[in-house]
């Protein structure tokens, strides 16, 4: 049983009057509680894939099966209802929230929209969500700009899991964070995956992070899949040119190994 099955997905844009393919005949699958990483150089189409999968963009060709049903035939209220199971976390946690929002409102919205909890019950749910992502429930009253970047990304994760999704798309979700905070967020993601069996479509250009967290990887180049397979195997011995270039370009700490 797969959570997400994408087949022959294509998206063309026009550049200087000429059409070019930002995503070109891309196929992949993600199983329950699995992390599939999508990596590639800048402009290779990673974010476009994320937006297509979330139906924020319409593909020119291809199929997207989500939880066994065609996602592309849905529209209007049916699509909005389906979105409860398919969530996203953005790179810049500040840009991902309405600047006027408070933490409580950001978490209240999904609960209200999908009728998950009654109005009187929601404050309790919000507190539980905050605690689930390792935040103090007292943070609820704060404005979004009054918390740190790491806390904000935790709130973004809390918002994504509020509707009990089976898949979360993370587009460079840890790239803007300090390394110390990044480690904590990755731990949280792994913990959620084990507890709630959430699958991740994890977009990143950092092979180190991918190797630490992902089960499988898809390497993109200019909108096409260059290589895919077990994350550690691919990173250990990449076969494609772009894979080799990415591995070679990843900075290494040349520490003398101490036992």
């Amino acid at each position, binding site marked *: 049983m797969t959570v997400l099955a994408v087949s022959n997905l294509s998206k063309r844009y026009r550049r200087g009057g000429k059409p070019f393919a930002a995503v070109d005949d891309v196929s992949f699958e993600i199983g329950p509680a699995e992390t599939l990483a999508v990596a590639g150089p800048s402009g290779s189409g990673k974010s476009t894939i994320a937006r297509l999968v979330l139906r924020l963009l319409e593909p020119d060709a291809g199929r997207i099966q989500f939880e066994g049903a065609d996602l592309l035939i849905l529209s209007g209220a049916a699509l909005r209802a389906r979105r409860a199971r398919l969530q996203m976390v953005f790179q810049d946690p500040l840009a991902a929230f309405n600047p006027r929002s408070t933490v409580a409102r950001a978490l209240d919205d999904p609960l209200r929209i999908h009728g998950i909890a009654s109005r009187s019950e929601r404050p309790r749910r919000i507190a539980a969500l905050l605690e689930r992502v390792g935040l103090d429930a007292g943070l609820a009253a704060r404005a979004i700009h009054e918390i740190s970047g790491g806390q904000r990304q935790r709130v973004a994760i809390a918002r994504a899991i509020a509707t009990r999704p089976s898949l979360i798309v993370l587009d460079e979700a840890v790239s803007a964070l300090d390394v110390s905070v990044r480690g904590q967020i990755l731990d949280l993601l792994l913990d959620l995956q084990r507890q709630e069996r959430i699958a991740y479509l994890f977009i990143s250009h950092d092979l*180190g992070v991918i190797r*630490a967290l992902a089960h499988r990887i898809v390497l993109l180049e200019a909108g096409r899949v260059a290589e895919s397979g077990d994350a550690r195997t691919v990173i250990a011995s990449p076969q494609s040119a772009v894979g080799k270039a990415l591995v070679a370009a990843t900075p*290494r700490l040349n*520490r003398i190994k101490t036992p």
Partner: protein
Amino acid sequence: MTALLSIRDLTVRYRREGVEVTALKGISLDVEAGERLAIIGESGSGKSTLALAVAGLLAEAAEVGGSIEWQKPRSSHSVTASHFQPLGGRDIGFVFQDPSFSLDPVMPVGKQIAEVARTHLNLTWREAYAKAKTLLGRVRLPDSEAALRAYPHQLSGGQKQRVAIAAAIAAAPKLLIADEATSALDTIVQAEIVSLIRGLVNEDGLTLAFISHDIALAATLAERIAVLRHGELVELGDTDQILNAPRHAYTRMLLDAHLGLDAKPLLDRQGASA
């Protein structure tokens, strides 16, 4: 050892809407002539503030204490003279994280580079353009003749950063400061820019201050590493020592948090599997 500049007890405070932020607290540091120094630390640790203070580019609202003394220009002995004021552009080249910050969107990039060369090296326009073309070749922009006439929006992020580097070294500065110059670029382009900077610094005998939040990246380029935390210099040492025998717990934490291609995957650590 000749110090290109000596920073003593540098303290910088920002005041904004009545709130005071101390961005640097008593930093003392010598930058040796010709060395490659990396300044690392997490967001808000004061890296950019230090770079801006050295370049004399701090906002007017900033309150500065302590001293930054430069080696007297072109003198064989290492007497420092506090009256020597370096000039941004001529003595210091600055490369920012976001190249659009330093490039004029409505001017061909060739003209922007030529202008730097012309004002600081007293060249004619013709000579300055010739220089700009050479520089664009040196930063390895393909077809430097065509690149001269390109506008910034016609270039990719990595290409823009190459142009920004060309402009920064156009006046043959002694010190090149790169503040997160590769953070907005993907890994492959980042590696290209880092190797470009390494080559240029070697060829011209430049002093490099490379600012980054990525300890592994900094280590690939620098001979010495300064670690900042909350505005304080917590550790300064040779790259080798910092990586293999860090003295400060914070440096150790930065090293441990790095996820390299040889790190133990978190998946295993937690015993999770699909």
